[in-house]
Every structure is written in C-alpha cells, then in structure tokens.
C-alpha cells in the first residue's frame, strides 16, 4: 500500500484575476525524502505551498496525498490527514508560554478541546511529552517564558517542535532559514535533517547551501512553472536554471 510517492500534484494552476501565479505544476514528492522547491522571487513557491495546504483553492488541477484526492479538503482537515506546514514568518502563539505552544499541538488528539467546563490542569499530563519535544529542539530551558520573548531563531525551533507534536507524516516548511544568522541556520538545518528520519519534508528555501546539503530532490520554479527537476548537482548545471537565477545567460 505504501506507494513510493506520498504527495502528487497534477496540472496544479492558480489564477488571480487573470494573473497566473502557478501554471500546470506537476510535482511528485517521494516518501521519506527531503524535497526542495526553489526559484527566484515571485516564482510562485509560496503559492504552491498555500495550494498544497489548501489555504488557497487551486483554479485547476489535482492534489493527491497517499493516493487520495485532497483537492477539495479544507485546510484544518489537510492538517488532520498528516500534512503540517510552517509559515514564512515564524508562526508561534506569542502570548502563550513556550510549553503551552507545544501543548496546543499535543492537545487536539485528546479530544477535549471543546471542554470549557474542565480545568486546563487536565492538560498537565501533556507536559512530559511537551518537554521532550522542547529538549529535542534545545528549548527546554525556555519552557515557562512567553514565546514572544524568544529570539527569532528559537521561535523557528519552537514552531518546529509544535509541528512535530502532531507526529506529521509530512512537513511543509516555508523558508525555514529566512532571516536567520549563521549559527541558527546550522542548528535548524541539523534539526531538519534529524526529524526527516521517518518523515517526508517539502521545503521552500532560498539558502542554496542549505538546499544542497539537505535535499534529495529539487524542483525549480520560475514564473509559476516547473523549470527543472533533479538532484542538486544536476539542477545547478541546468542552463535555464542558471539563467533564471543569474538573469540573462547570454552576457
């Protein structure tokens, strides 16, 4: 049953009032791989992400997850199927503590999220698992601090910990390294490598050294269309890709 391809798109297209942001994109993400989506600014990478997680509704085309057509599924339900995304700007709950942030991720499967008559202390039994997750990303020492007080790189780590709390089958990371300093980049890259062990990761990333180190497969987008696909060495030699990144190749 476990087919080789976990996520597939067929002819994915998104039009905004006549402007085609994504045109006929067909992706095949292999199970267990780290798949990177790269391309110059405005190539439609984030739009593809929003389409995959259903934050945007495609104008055309299909999305299949584990062979099931999820084109018409709502965003929260996509998450319930096991695809959890991150955001370009670190998405934490700023006024909740670091520990509470992770517990929001752990809480849903308990099925008590509508119980307004119970004390929140019933959530304390999640603390053990939450601390484990925080330790995993090096945030155990910050557990009681409001998330808003964390430095940027640590917010991203917290976001990943919250994401992992849901045990997702697949992670979609939207520019996980955006706005980070060197040591943070190394730490998050190592973290991504580590959590990819039994998961599939699809990420949008601008930092090409990170992309070359981490990813098994790369899809290059330009102007909303797939320009090239392959392993890093292969793709980086591709003349069209060089042109898209460097500007005109004729100079």
């Amino acid at each position: 049953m476990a087919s080789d391809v976990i996520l597939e798109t067929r002819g994915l297209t998104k039009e905004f009032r006549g402007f085609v942001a994504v045109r006929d994109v067909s992706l095949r993400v292999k199970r267990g791989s780290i798949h990177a989506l790269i391309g110059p600014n405005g190539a439609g990478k984030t739009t593809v992400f929003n389409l995959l997680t259903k934050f945007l509704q495609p104008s055309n085309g299909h999305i299949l997850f584990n062979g099931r057509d999820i084109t018409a599924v709502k965003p929260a339900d996509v998450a319930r199927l096991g695809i959890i995304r991150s955001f370009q700007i670190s998405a934490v709950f700023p006024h909740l503590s670091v520990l509470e942030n992770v517990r929001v991720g752990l809480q849903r499967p308990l099925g008590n999220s509508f119980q307004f008559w119970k004390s929140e202390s019933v959530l304390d039994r999640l603390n053990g698992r939450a601390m484990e997750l925080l330790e995993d990303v090096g945030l155990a020492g910050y557990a009681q601090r409001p998330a808003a007080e964390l430095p940027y790189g640590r917010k991203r780590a917290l976001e990943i910990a919250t994401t992992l709390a849901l045990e997702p089958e697949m992670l979609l990371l939207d520019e996980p390294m955006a706005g980070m300093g060197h040591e943070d980049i190394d730490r998050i890259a190592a973290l991504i490598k580590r959590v990819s062990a039994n998961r599939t990761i699809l990420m949008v990333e601008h930092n090409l050294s990170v992309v070359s180190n981490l990813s098994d497969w790369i899809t290059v987008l330009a102007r909303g269309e797939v320009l090239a696909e392959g392993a890093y060495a292969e793709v980086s030699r591709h003349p069209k890709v060089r042109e898209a990144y460097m500007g005109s190749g004729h100079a």
Partner: protein
Amino acid sequence: MATEIHAVRRETAAPATGRPATPDLLAFAALLLVLIAAPYVLYPVFVMKVLCFALFACAFNLLIGFAGLLSFGHAAFFGGAAYITAHTVKVWGLPPELGILLGTAFSATLGLAFGALAIRRQGIYFAMITLALSQMVFFMALQLKFTGGEDGIQAVPRGHLFGVIDLSNSLSMYYFVLAVFLFGFVVIWRTVHSPFGQVLKAIRENEPRAISLGYRTDHYKLMAFVLSATLAGLAGGTKAIVFQLATLTDVQWQMSGAVVLMTLLGGIGTLFGPVVGAALVVTLENYLAASNLPVPVVIGVIFVACVLLFRRGIVGEIAARFGGKRS
C-alpha cells in the same frame, strides 16, 4: 479600525500566560467581600444594576478578549433575553428563575444563529453583520405585539424565587443577583482556563497557525460566540427582573456600544476589567443624570482620555504596571 482593535488586544492579552495566578484569586476574594457588604453601604438597586452590566460586559469580553471577535450586536442577546424573561414572568406567570432561564436559552439560540452567520467574516465585516442582525431584533421588539412597542414590558412582578424567597425584598433580590453574577463570572473564569480556552487563545494569537495544526477554528469561534451570547442573555434576563421591565433601550445599538465602552475602559482580555468598567460607566451615568451635564459627552471625553492615556484599560494598565512580567 479592525487592525486598531487588534493592536489594543495584543497589548492587553499578556496576563494570559501561566498557571492560575494568585493575584487573580486575591482580587476575586476582595471583590467578593466588597459585593457581599455593598448593599449595606450603597443603594442595592444601583449595585444590582452594576452587577447586571458587569456580567454583560464580562460575557462580551469573553468574545473580544479571548476569541478576538468584536461583536457590535450584543444588545440583541441582552435585550432579547430581557423581553423573553419579562414576558414569560408577567404574562405566563412563570417564577423568576424559570423566566430568566428561558430568556437565557433564547439568547443562546439566537447566538447560535447569529454566530453561524457572522463568523464566516472577519474583522469589521464581522462587527457589521452582528450589528445588522441585532438591528433586526430591535425592529422586531418595536413591531411585535408582545413586546409592547415603545412602552416595552412594564410592571413585571419580581415574584418568589423557587416559590419561597420573596424577591420584592431588595436584599433578597440583591443576593440573588449577586449569585447569578458570580455564577456567570466563574463560568467565564473556568472557560478562559480550560482546554477550550487554551485553543481559543491560540486562535486569537495566530489563527492560520491554529488551522495548520488541524483546528477547525470556526467551530471554536462559534462556541465562544454562543457562550458569550448565553451569558449576555443571563445578564439581560436578570436585569428585567431587577428593574421589572424590558424596553427598547435594552436592544438598541447604543447598548451594544455601551458594553464595548465598559470593556475597553476596564481592560480587554482581563478578567476583572469589564467589572470595573461597568461599575465606572453605571456610576457616572447615575451621578451625572442628576447634574446638568450632558452624560454622553462626559462619558465620551472620559473614553477618549482613557484610550489616549492608558490603552490597556484600567485593570490592564494596573496588571501591566504591578504584575510586571510573570515568569
């Protein structure tokens, strides 16, 4: 305007972090003592009015402070319940507790219907839809037979609570109102500090992220809306028994505005802020009514001063200054 409210809310929301705080418990104990002693010092009807509006404001605050939804139609729930309670007690001859219960149930149902329509939209559009729907309730109150049009429903008997306690005695009435208020307040407190409250805060802080974690956020918002409408109805029904009347004032849009004002003055997203805000506004109205000053102008000036000087509201500002950073 929507973003402004957003900004105010973010600033005031800080105390939500961490365990049930001892300062909260101490403040609650102090409030309780003051309220138990109040009718011996102050005019009981005045304090009852404060309590009804305080509960109304607390219910409203549950929605704006903890779910981040600005409703501009809460008068429909407050006034709607007042009419139902007044009618069932006066015409059907129900005992007061049942009348209030029916009024509250009516508001809960109305909240479910209004909420289901309004939460499809965000920000200012949400506020406008709630306003439009509440105006419909206003016109119904004006036109329907049983509501008495411009006169409203007057001379509602206070009756006997559970058939034994005579509510025409103002002290009995007072302690009944106090019990209703405390019940509502504790329900809100519990809701805020419940598994549900935790998700609600997460949605308020970052809705797309909550969705991406698999929460169907509309369901949570609707739940918060219904809870808020229900408690606003409880306040309105109780008010109808205290003052023995339900009038158009209760369902007018100014009433929706007044509750926004009370909550803002006291401090959005704080547990005690709406109580303080309601007490302040009701007190001002009462004392200014006797003077020659135009009441709305004075309250307006105070409101502007508040927004300029302490945007977190009275309680929010105190909490920020003395509570400091809770670890």
